[in-house]
């Protein structure tokens, strides 16, 4: 059925390129996550504590970006904006697109997190005479951080995998490198199986690292899978 001899040796010399691609993927994921986290925190704060009129536009932003594909959002930034005079490099388009997309999802996640509250702890703090600032610092923030950590970590892993669509725009992250190397060597099964393996390793390491961080900061139990 599959008349194909596997020749992994042919792609071995290209491994450094794949590692470079992996670093770029992690960089894109990290930068857009940070940007998205910032947008999300500002939005969620405004939604929870800000004036009423600001809710509508923020919700519109969230609803729009979470109901359309990230790929098409980047297509728009890369192909449509030039018509309006804004020329973005493929890297910039991907970064901005992923940041905005992340911003929308992280707004939702953080908004849900902000609305959880530990009534009994709050009452204890008030009765013990904590000032508003102390309440925030010792009761509210630690609790919110603990609640938000798992969904944020999960989304980070999703974003790491999501960087692969940058390849479509010519960015030479891991998938992009794979497509390049494929067009040189034509060993498609070998190259993509190695790349699949690399993504698995990257996400396993990320899950492990985040799990460790979580258990250190919040004393949650460690599970990898």
């Amino acid at each position, binding site marked *: 059925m599959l008349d194909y001899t596997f020749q992994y040796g042919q792609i071995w010399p290209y491994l450094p390129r794949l590692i470079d691609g992996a670093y770029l993927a992690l960089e894109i994921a990290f930068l857009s996550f940070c940007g998205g986290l910032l947008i999300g925190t500002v939005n969620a704060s405004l939604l929870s504590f800000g004036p009423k009129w600001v809710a509508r536009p923020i919700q519109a932003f969230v609803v729009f970006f979470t*109901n359309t594909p990230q*790929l098409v959002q980047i297509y728009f930034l890369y192909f*449509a904006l030039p018509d*309006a005079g804004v020329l973005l490099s493929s890297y910039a388009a991907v970064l901005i697109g992923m940041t905005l997309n992340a911003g929308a999802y992280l707004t939702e996640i953080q908004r849900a997190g902000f609305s959880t509250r530990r009534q009994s702890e709050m009452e204890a703090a008030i009765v013990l005479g904590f000032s508003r600032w102390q309440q925030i610092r010792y009761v509210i923030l630690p609790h919110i951080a603990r609640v938000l950590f798992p969904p944020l970590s999960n989304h980070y892993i999703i974003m790491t995998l999501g960087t692969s669509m940058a390849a479509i725009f010519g960015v030479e992250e891991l998938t992009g490198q*794979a497509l390049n190397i494929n067009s040189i060597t034509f060993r*498609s099964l070998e190259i993509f199986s190695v790349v699949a393996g690399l993504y698995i390793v990257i996400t396993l390491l990320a899950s492990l690292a985040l799990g460790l961080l979580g258990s250190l900061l919040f004393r949650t139990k460690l599970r990898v899978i």
Partner: protein
Amino acid sequence: MITQLIQEMPRFFTYYNLLFLAQAVGTTIALSAIGCLFGLLFGCLISTVRLTDKAWLAPLRWIALLFTEFFRRVPFLVTLMLVFFVFQLSGANLPLFVVASLSVTLIASAFLAEIIRAGLLSIHRNQWDAATAMNFGLLQTIRYVVLPQAWKMILPPAFGFFVMFIKDTALASQIGVIELTFAGKVLNNKGFSAILVFGTILILYFAVSYPLSRFGHYLEKRLAPSRH
């Protein structure tokens, strides 16, 4: 620029183009639906295998675990490429839609297997214990006791996955399936302005995804309200 766009609209929104876009929307929904329907089937199989405890079934359990972890930790695009090249190199002349459906089914099976497993395990231990003590086998326990109770915990997230998956089918455009994103590329290449084309595509995705996601929220409220 806005006047240019307005002038272009009658040329863009022709009957032929609208039909083309409608068919593309149909393909998009079909891909996600097929993936999720077969995904539910295989997901049930995989999650049941993972719940067995007989020693001789251990290799199957490992395969099920590896399958689930693989397709959840590899980007959709890479999975698509792998499946595409496997079929290209095997010489089988399968239509692109079939290749894409296969990829989509593999991915959906892995994710839905996790959702199903979580749902089955959410059923209290004592329901499982009572069935085991009365000599129910694993399949009988799942069929008569656990699944009738668990489907309410499974359907809302499974439906939510289906709605989310519609957006991921956009990647199938990369292997040439004529779904909505590919339709956008085609129309853009034909010369229509990118703002109009991709703007329309974004709105069409929204028009499909948003109502479905609202329905999904309604399902969650109706079926599994005591979640928190």
